[in-house]
């Protein structure tokens, strides 16, 4: 039992870190593609460039061997632990994301998520809310005004959008009638009107429209990356960070991108559910029976496909939209997403009441 | 015990009148003021009459109607209701109060017409009627006490009505303080009643006395009766607390007629009548009542002889007549006492109204030596006054004869009376006839001795004053015919001629007082003696003040010490002054003021408490220092102490 859990943890952390590492390359490569450039392709090992994939290694090397400069006045301890909060919170959140349907091994059902929690969604929010501590403490510990301003901005933004996030997701909870994320994914395998997969995006389109900007803002990604800005507050809360500590923040951000993509996939795109694929095979104008192991593999691959698409989508958003202004950001959070989230709750409640009689 | 749900209207109307006149009277025109007041009291009278006839519809044995208005005090085993009670006794009383009160309200319109405080006068008068009807209708002694105090207050306010005059304000205070002394006894009586009976309701108390009367301690009952009688001596001007009544003549004359002759001063008599069973169970108390009453009747009458102020004479006469009533109560002739109360209300009110009419005509002069020969100027006043005088003197067939004769006879015939009381009664009757006719002769007969400027203005009073007087005069004549004693009734061939006593009989039926039986001839003889005495008094007065007008002075000189003693009212006021008032004044000045008030109350009490507060706060301010943590600390300390105590306990 423990062994399985440890294997799952290692698998998830490995995949996440790999994704995060890859993202450092994807970030640059995708921007190059979007902006019609060649981009990150200089690093070569023995003449092999491999689309610039070796940049990942050189980046890491650079970060580790750079001087870890800590300004004299900072609070050493807090300065040290601040980057850990977002990083570990992002990693921990993934624990409740199911990346495949439960599999049977030797008469024992193994969930393909690290932990199947009764209140998984709450867990998701609880752990992700810890990430706020990172920017605040980093900003404060740096003992520097830009860092502090950046930290304040980041924290205010994240606290505000946590509420928007929470309110927008309640509709989904109501529709699937559970807080268990695995169960939510399982219920998304059902069909609506006999042909439409019961994915979150179909049953809760308004929630999706609210959730997407909210979670990007929560992640402090463009177009909501207000905590930093060369022209106003330099690099925000990590102005005073360098080398691998700075790298931790960035790694955390990329892990967060991955996690956000996974959460979006899980809640709104059916998670590991392949349309019309049930436990005994395809149900598409008749039943196409498939072996069980094949179905499991298809589902895991489906999840990864969706996940990667989500990551691509988020990155595309990053390189497509212009930045908001800070007041616009706050207005969006408090005056648009929050009220519409409440409206969504009311509408969902009415519809559920009508359907259930 | 049936209910009668409109009884509360009787006190209610005067209360409304009082509120209207008291609050807004200053702004209202005079006609509105007296219309409001009169309508209020006449409405009460009407309701009283209706209630009286409703009472008559009930079978005689069950004539107790109650109006439970409101549960006033409810605590532990004690329940005191605002509840009104109508039985024959209170029916008679309420009719007298509202009836005479209504007539006097009318009279007041004329008498007070140019007074600047018109509205105040009528407001007080309505308040008085309100309080008096509460007193009369009260079904328990606490509510009665409310009315009792209310009438005391009205009496004080009305005696001191012209409070700009220091002497009149003093008279008001005197009345009030004297009454307070009596009330002290009354309150003790109430408390003792509560201890003995565990209830204060008259009906309940009577039930207890009827069924368990023998088991109760006679000493306790006697004490209650005496305490209550002390209250009555204050309110009804008996020895030793009568001194306020003559001074109370400082008030407007209609007030004297209403409050200090007809109604309020009879409250004591009424109270004894209400609690007749209690008194019947306390023979010692009754003996004291009779003795005090006899003494009062006699001494007040002697004091009246030498008075020259027309109202003072009437005042002493009132005291004396109240003595008669108490005498009746004391010997157990309750019905006779109440009967005399009623007839006295008629003729004494009339006498006061007549004297008011005279004073009104004489532009305020009250000294009889400046009057004389007013008969030809004001005939209506004269004839009505004469009627009342004959009534008070006990000349048949006027009302006073029947009631007074019954009292005198009862004082002889009752097992609780005796020949001494009877003798006092007769002698007092002679003196009464004498001083009343002295008054009539000095005022209405002979030459006019008034100053020139007054002489021109002497005139008969307006109809608004004379009509009530005429009505009262008629009542003074026929008012006694409801209580004709059986021997006279037999003479006219009327069976059960004493309707009045029969009507009241259920109230007093349980107070078993034994009356000796004498032959009719004896009764006739006694009647003849008292009537003869009255005639004798009249003759003496006629001889001294019409025939030989020089004689009174000579007699006075001859018995100068006695005359001076009588003229100065036996120096009672002076004795009281030196015996009680001055020592109390000195104690108050030296001990209560200079020491108790200045040092104890101001020094230790008022300033001392302030100083101790300042001292304590000087220490406490280090605690109350605005520091929230110190507060939290004290809070925790408290928790620690409480928990520690609980652990150890």
């Amino acid at each position, binding site marked *: 039992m423990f062994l399985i859990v440890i294997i799952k943890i290692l698998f998830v952390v490995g995949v996440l870190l790999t994704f995060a590492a890859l993202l450092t390359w994807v970030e640059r490569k995708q921007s190059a593609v979007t902006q019609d450039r060649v981009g990150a392709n200089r690093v070569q090992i023995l003449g092999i460039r491999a689309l610039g994939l070796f940049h990942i290694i050189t980046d890491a090397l650079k970060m580790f061997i750079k001087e870890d400069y800590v300004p004299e006045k900072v*609070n050493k*301890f*807090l300065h040290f*632990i601040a980057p850990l909060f977002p990083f570990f919170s992002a990693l921990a959140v993934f624990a409740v994301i199911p990346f495949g349907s439960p599999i049977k091994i030797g008469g024992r059902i193994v969930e393909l998520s690290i932990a199947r*929690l*009764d*209140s998984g969604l*709450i*867990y998701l*929010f*609880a*752990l992700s*809310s*810890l990430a*706020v*501590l990172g920017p*605040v*403490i980093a*900003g*404060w*510990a740096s003992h520097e005004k830009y860092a*502090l301003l950046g*930290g*304040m901005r980041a*924290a*205010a933004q994240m*606290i505000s959008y*946590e509420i928007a996030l929470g309110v927008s997701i309640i509709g989904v909870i109501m529709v699937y009638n559970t*807080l268990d994320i695995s169960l939510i994914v399982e219920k998304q395998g059902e069909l609506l009107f006999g042909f439409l997969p019961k994915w979150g995006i179909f049953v809760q389109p308004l929630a999706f429209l609210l959730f997407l900007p909210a979670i990007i803002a929560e992640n402090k990604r463009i177009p909501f990356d207000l905590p930093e800005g060369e022209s106003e507050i330099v690099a925000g809360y990590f102005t005073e960070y360098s080398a691998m500590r700075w790298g931790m923040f960035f790694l955390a951000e990329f892990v967060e991108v991955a996690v956000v993509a996974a959460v979006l996939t899980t809640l709104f795109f059916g998670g590991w559910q392949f349309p019309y694929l049930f436990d005994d095979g395809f149900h598409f104008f008749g039943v196409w029976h498939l072996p069980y192991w094949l179905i499991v593999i298809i589902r895991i691959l489906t999840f990864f496909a969706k996940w990667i698409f989500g990551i691509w989508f988020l990155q595309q958003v990053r390189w497509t939209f212009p930045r908001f202004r800070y007041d616009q950001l706050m207005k969006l959070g408090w005056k648009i997403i929050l009220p519409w989230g409440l409206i969504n709750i009311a509408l969902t409640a009415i519809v559920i009441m009508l359907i259930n009689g | 015990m049936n209910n009668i749900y409109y009884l509360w209207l009787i006190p209610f109307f005067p209360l409304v009148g009082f509120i209207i006149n008291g609050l807004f009277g200053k702004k209202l025109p005079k006609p509105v003021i007296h219309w409001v007041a009169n309508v209020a009291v006449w409405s009460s009278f009407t309701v009283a009459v209706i209630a009286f006839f409703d009472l008559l519809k009930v079978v005689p044995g069950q004539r107790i109607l109650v109006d439970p208005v409101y549960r006033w005090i409810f605590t532990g085993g004690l329940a005191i209701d605002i509840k009104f009670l109508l039985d024959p006794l209170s029916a008679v009383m309420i009719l007298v109060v509202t009836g005479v009160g209504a007539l006097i309200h009318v009279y007041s319109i004329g008498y007070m017409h140019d007074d600047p405080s018109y509205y105040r006068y009528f407001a007080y008068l309505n308040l008085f009627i309100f309080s008096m009807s509460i007193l009369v209708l009260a079904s328990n002694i606490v509510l009665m006490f409310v009315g009792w105090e209310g009438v005391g207050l009205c009496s004080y306010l009305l005696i001191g009505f012209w409070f700009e005059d220091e002497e009149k304000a003093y008279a008001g205070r005197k009345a009030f303080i004297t009454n307070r002394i009596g009330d002290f006894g009354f309150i003790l009586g109430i408390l003792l009643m509560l201890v003995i009976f565990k209830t204060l309701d008259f009906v309940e108390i009577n039930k207890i006395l009827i069924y368990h009367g023998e088991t109760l301690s006679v000493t306790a009952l006697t004490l209650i009766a005496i305490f209550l009688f002390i209250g009555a001596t204050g309110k009804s001007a008996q020895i030793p607390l009568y001194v306020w009544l003559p001074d109370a003549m400082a008030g407007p004359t209609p007030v004297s007629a209403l409050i200090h002759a007809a109604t309020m001063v009879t409250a004591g008599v009424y109270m004894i009548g209400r609690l007749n069973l209690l008194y019947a169970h306390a023979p010692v108390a009754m003996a004291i009542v009779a003795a005090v009453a006899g003494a009062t009747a006699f001494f007040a009458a002697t004091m009246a002889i030498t008075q020259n102020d027309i109202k003072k004479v009437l005042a002493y006469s009132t005291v004396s007549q109240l003595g008669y009533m108490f005498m009746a109560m004391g010997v157990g002739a309750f019905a006779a006492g109440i009967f005399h109360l009623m007839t006295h209300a008629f003729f004494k009110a009339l006498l006061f109204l007549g004297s008011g009419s005279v004073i009104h005509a004489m532009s305020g002069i009250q000294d009889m030596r400046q009057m004389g020969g007013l008969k030809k100027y004001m005939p209506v006043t004269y004839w009505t006054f004469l009627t009342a005088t004959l009534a008070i003197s006990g000349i048949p067939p006027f009302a006073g004869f029947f009631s007074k004769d019954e009292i005198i006879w009862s004082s002889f015939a009752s097992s609780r009376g005796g020949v001494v009381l009877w003798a006092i009664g007769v002698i007092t009757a002679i003196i009464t006839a004498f001083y009343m006719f002295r008054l009539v002769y000095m005022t209405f007969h002979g030459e006019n001795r008034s100053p020139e400027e007054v002489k021109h203005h002497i005139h008969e009073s307006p109809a608004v004053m004379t009509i009530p007087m005429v009505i009262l005069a008629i009542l003074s004549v026929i008012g006694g015919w409801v209580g004709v004693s059986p021997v006279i009734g037999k003479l006219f061939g009327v069976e059960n001629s004493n309707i009045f006593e029969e009507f009241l009989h259920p109230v007093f039926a349980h107070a078993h007082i034994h009356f000796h039986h004498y032959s009719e001839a004896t009764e006739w003889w006694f009647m003849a003696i008292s009537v003869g005495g009255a005639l004798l008094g009249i003759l003496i007065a006629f001889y001294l003040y019409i025939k030989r007008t020089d004689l009174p002075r000579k007699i006075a000189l001859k018995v100068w010490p006695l005359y001076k003693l009588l003229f100065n009212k036996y120096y009672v006021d002076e004795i009281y002054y030196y015996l009680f008032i001055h020592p109390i004044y000195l104690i108050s000045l030296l001990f209560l003021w200079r020491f108790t008030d200045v040092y104890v109350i101001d020094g230790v009490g008022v300033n001392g408490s302030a100083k101790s507060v300042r001292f304590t706060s000087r220490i406490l301010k280090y605690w109350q220092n605005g520091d929230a*943590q*110190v507060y939290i*600390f004290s809070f*925790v*300390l408290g*928790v*620690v102490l409480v*928990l*520690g105590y609980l*652990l150890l306990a």
Partner: protein
Amino acid sequence: MLATMLIYIFGALAIFSGLMMILYRNPIHSALWFGLVLFSLAGIYALMQAHFLALIQILVYVGAITVLIVYVIALLNFDQRDLVGKVTILKGIAVIVAAILFIELLFYVGGLYVKGIAPPPEFGKAANIGLATLTRYLFPFEVISILLLVAVVGGVYIAKKD
């Protein structure tokens, strides 16, 4: 057995963090220790089959309350010398009084022996608590929601400039 051991470990952690919280001079450090206390308590809750409560503890206490405290401390950003409190006799007495209170409470608690019964497996799950909250405890729930609304309005009003 494992659960009991973990409870003790978490409890020790909570107590240690609590002590650190009140001993540290710097409020941000205190706040982080406070967060650790809350986390340990969440762990104890989870071990006592109050999973939902454990998560709520983290979500609300750590994720919102602690974060807000840290945020406001950073926002106000006062000088370090502000934080130096005076050492007074009262503080010494306060510690002594607290110690006495501790001993007294130990007397009370020491006298208790709670056996406890095994709750059903669905005990402490969100659905179970939700059911209890919205049926038997609906009134306190409504009251607390009004309180929360009032607190939101009041907090905004108080903190608002002028």
